[in-house]
């Protein structure tokens, strides 16, 4: 069902940005941990945070106070906006490029005129996308673990936690890729579908922060995909790993089935 030759094509088309993302994220993880271990940042940041209004301090609790520790910094590396942005670009670009843009260029028409079933195409694309995201996140994990091993002490506990965070992150971005796939299977124009997916992801991200700030919109938390990605909480045993991955996995499967259904019935022109 999954065509290896097609995986090779997808990797060739996406490897440039994927390798850049791998390098950048790995380096960033390494640098964050290096800075935390070589500079006394905690006293500086604590002094700044003490000057902040209480509400803002509550908001920063997860992302900043935990960062002051070595473990917190390791988790923060996985939640850094640049890391999330690079992974989101990869997750959105893979289905966008191989469905909508190829439909525009005519290569999808040629491909599907060959004995290549539509559901095989979608599954091959989805699996390939998952593998590309996996390699990027794996590189980030290796970068973090290497830094921990060099500047701190690498314990079994921290390896497990880091792997949980990586897996949680992987599922989040597979979900972003999967709903982008739905949008592209319904969409016509490449840029438009890409923009819709990017804006949707950005809205989720912003609402995630806003719902932490304002109690009045806290009820939207369960409906936000970023609620189920909690690296800092996982690192400090406050998270619920099984619930997070169950919800993300279910959403991914729903998105995949909708994509398969829609792509199977749509016109390729």
């Amino acid at each position, binding site marked *: 069902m999954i065509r290896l030759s097609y995986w090779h094509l997808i990797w060739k088309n996406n490897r440039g940005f994927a390798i850049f993302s791998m390098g950048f994220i790995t380096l960033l993880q390494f640098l964050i941990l290096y800075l935390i271990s070589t500079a006394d940042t905690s006293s500086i940041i604590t002094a700044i945070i003490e000057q902040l209004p209480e509400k803002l301090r509550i908001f920063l609790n997860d992302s900043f106070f935990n960062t002051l520790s070595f473990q917190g910094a390791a988790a923060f590396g996985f939640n850094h906006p640049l890391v999330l942005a690079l992974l989101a670009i990869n997750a959105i670009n893979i289905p966008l490029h191989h469905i909508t843009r190829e439909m525009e260029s005519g290569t999808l028409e040629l491909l599907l005129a060959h004995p290549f079933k539509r559901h095989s195409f979608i599954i091959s694309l989805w699996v390939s996308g998952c593998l590309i995201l996996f390699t990027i996140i794996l590189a980030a994990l290796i970068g973090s673990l290497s830094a921990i091993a060099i500047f701190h002490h690498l314990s079994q506990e921290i390896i497990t936690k880091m792997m949980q965070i990586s897996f949680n992150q992987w599922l989040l971005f597979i979900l972003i890729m999967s709903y982008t796939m739905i949008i592209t299977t319904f969409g016509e124009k490449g840029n438009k579908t890409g923009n819709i997916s990017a804006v949707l992801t950005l809205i989720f991200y912003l609402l995630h922060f806003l719902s932490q700030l304002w109690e009045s919109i806290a009820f939207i938390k369960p409906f936000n995909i970023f609620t189920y990605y909690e690296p800092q909480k996982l690192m400090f045993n406050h998270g619920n790993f099984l619930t997070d991955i169950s919800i993300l996995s279910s959403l991914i499967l729903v998105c995949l089935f909708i994509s398969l259904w829609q792509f199977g019935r749509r016109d390729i*022109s």
Partner: protein
Amino acid sequence: MRDSQIIYTEQLTKYYGRIAGVKEISFEVNRGEIFGFLGPNGAGKTTTIRLLLDLLRPTSGKIVIFGKDVKSNSFEIRQKCGYLPGNFSAYGNLTGKEFLNLLADLRKVPRYIEPGLLDRFGLANGDLKRKIKHLSHGTLQKLGIIQAFFHRPELLILDEPTTGLDPLMQEEFYDLLHKYQNMGCTTFFSSHNLSEVEKVCHRLAIIRKGEIVAIESIEDMKKKLYRKLELTLRKPLDRFELPGARIIKKQGLKYEFIVTGRKDTLLKSLADLPLEDFVFPRPDLEEVFMNYYRDQRDD
């Protein structure tokens, strides 16, 4: 539907919203035949091809290829088909060789291209090692032809296949088409180039505004043609008309007519005229086509 029919369509209709791509088209293509599908741009040729390949889903109607319904057997059908899309494009990041390997893998056939096929189009290994984005339009089209032919398909579906080929390569292409026909291959040949359809096809369908207006053999089509008459008078006439003929062009004493009535009556009328010269030029398919459209417009 007969066993000898490779493609059979019945009342095939495709609407894009409210706009009809094709309307109730019915035709059949016989085994070993090169079937021309002729029409101007936007007539519905590409829509028909995409329907045949199950890329588009018909609004209504039936398509049977190799005796099987396309909707439920498209995978098996596409295994036996070679397809060259109009405006052929391929993955720019791959080399020609990688691209052909990808398609061979998708077909689960050996990664082997008959050297004769490459030689015919002057494609050396060097060309296949270059990235597709660096190939010229003509070379890209040759690559498109090779990908359609290399796995020896039983049915070829070709959409404007000679676009971008120079006349020498076009001749090579026609020769290749006849070679495959002799091997039993059936070809659905879409084109707006009437002379090449006349040259390679056995039968043709003319499509206009999504509707098939004629399906005939090339010979029958020519026989049905309105003959042209070109004549030059020795001196001007006050009122010059011919029974069974319609003036389409006048330049001084030179006249061009389309013959619409009986030729014997016309010849008798010509005998009474002060004629300098006259000729019934042999019609080509272009004229059939234009006359056919003119007729449709007049209706």
